[in-house]
């Protein structure tokens, strides 16, 4: 009995350690974001101050609000484009038998493994050629490289598992493939679309390398670049308060979304690869 109590206590201590380790850094960022002046430079484990001036500094400045708008626009457009291209493609990949399908699926997966740096030089050329440098469209175009393969992959796995009968019935009724996709599959696909869309959104929202390379002016920056570049009056003085406030602003919506959709996200993350 005693050893059972001991192992139970040990188990819950482990659980507590996991939770604290996961949550503490963000908790600490929130505490810091409410501290200003000298309060910033005393180490506090519990919330002591509640001062919104860091938030006012960040949002009052002309560029950070603009960066949020940029990020929202870029991430949503990227998601819509990826979903549109992926739904039709994954219908064909999941439902129609043709030669080279397996190879095609593997190539698509291979693209998602590309190190982004390997396409950077070529993308700079392409983006300058298309005249998209320093515009949101540079990011929308380049983010396709990681959102599209992933979306196609997950949607294909999802569609492969849908029952054949519903499609057969539609074919007997003389429905064209386009009608089958829009009228038969799309209503069933909503859960998968929400998951993949959300994951693609998070990917686009967080991306840094392309956003850093393809933007020049402050007004065009996305939020990760803006946060990385936030600087104080002098080189030495890092404005930790505003940085933490900006971090909290861009992270809270994501955390809320992830917590609401957590089951779906876990399913989406594990789809494809781990199915076998």
């Amino acid at each position, binding site marked *: 009995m005693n050893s059972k109590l001991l192992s139970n206590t040990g188990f819950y201590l482990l659980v507590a350690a996991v939770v604290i380790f996961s949550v503490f850094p963000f908790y600490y960022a929130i505490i810091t974001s409410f501290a200003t002046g000298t309060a910033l430079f005393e*180490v506090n484990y519990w919330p002591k101050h509640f001062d919104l001036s860091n938030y006012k500094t960040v949002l009052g400045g002309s560029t950070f609000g603009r960066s949020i708008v940029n990020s929202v626009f870029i991430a949503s457009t990227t998601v819509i484009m990826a979903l549109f*291209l992926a739904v039709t493609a994954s219908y064909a990949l999941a439902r129609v038998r043709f030669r080279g399908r397996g190879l095609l699926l593997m190539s698509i997966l291979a693209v998602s493994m590309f190190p982004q740096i390997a396409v950077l030089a070529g993308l700079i050329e392409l983006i300058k050629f298309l005249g998209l440098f320093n515009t949101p469209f540079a990011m929308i175009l380049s983010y396709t490289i990681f959102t599209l393969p992933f979306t196609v992959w997950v949607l294909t796995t999802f569609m492969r598992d849908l029952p054949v009968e519903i499609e057969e019935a539609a074919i007997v009724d003389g429905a064209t493939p386009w009608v089958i996709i829009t009228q038969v599959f799309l209503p069933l696909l909503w859960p998968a679309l929400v998951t993949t869309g959300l994951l693609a959104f998070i990917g686009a929202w967080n991306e840094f390398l392309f956003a850093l390379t393809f933007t020049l002016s402050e007004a065009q920056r996305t939020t990760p670049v803006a946060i990385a570049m936030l600087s104080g009056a002098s080189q030495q003085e890092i404005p930790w308060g505003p940085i933490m406030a900006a971090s909290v602003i861009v992270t809270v919506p994501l955390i809320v979304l992830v917590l609401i959709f957590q089951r779906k996200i876990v399913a989406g993350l594990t789809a494809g690869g781990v199915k076998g």
Partner: protein
Amino acid sequence: MTQTAQGPGRDLSLQQQRQRAAFWFIAPMLAALFLVAAWPLLRTIWFSFTDTSLDNLYGGQWVGFDNYLKIRTLESGRVLYKGTLVDPAWWNAVWNTVKFSVVSVICETVLGLIVALVLNAEFKGRGFVRAAILIPWAIPTIVSAKMWAWMLNDQFGIINDIMLNLGLISQKIAWTASTDTAMMAVLMVDVWKTTPFMALLILAGLQMVPRDIYEAAKIDGIHPVKVFFKVTLPLIRPALMVAVIFRMLDALRIFDLIYVLTPNSKATKTMSVISRENMIDFNNFAYGAAQSTLLFAMIALFVSAYIWLGKVDLGGESGK
């Protein structure tokens, strides 16, 4: 697949019609992927054999392998070697990348396995714990880098404060600035951020292990540790192998965390960081392209070897 009993002639035309539609459905996606992936990759490789500069992308001349290795014999008979392959900064970056990838993936796999085993047990508040571990995953990498940079701050950081209070260190450490600890700092943040992802992938594998196996082992009185190594681990091996390769690929191309957490530190500069630095900041565009080509080749080789040696079934197709 969808043939119904309507005679072979109709079947064929239906199948053909479907295949034609399939082609038009796939074509736009392939065109998009060609435009943003295949073409830029080919251009990068091409640039790596030229002396192109960033301000004059179309003025490059073909220079062969000079960006990789250039051997010149001087009149005095001395042989000069130039290029990435003899550049100590490049090999330092290669070594940093490999060190970072191997250590971080091992730590994340072990910790992820522990967390997954915890989450696989039935206990009160399991949903809450799962939600909690999703938080590091949801936080943008740049934000995590800044958060940890602040926590690891040498003067006012909470990590130094905790460790001083616990008596683990005797004086404050400049975690991100000092060359001895910079890599450790990067590893710490990466493990914190990606262990949840690992845990969730492993958990998905664990949940496919039938519960009655554990029941049977319990009745036979087999020690849980033995059950884990003899039964659970072999059963989740496919899921584990896939999770490891995805993490490994992410680790090998790491850029953002290092760029923000330990800028310009020689101890943490990885292949991606040094390539971009040459390409953009140092105006060695073609040289950087050569380095990123090498990184691509390394990753491609690694993936092929891993799939071949580990017999990893990425598609889950053969299992069907």
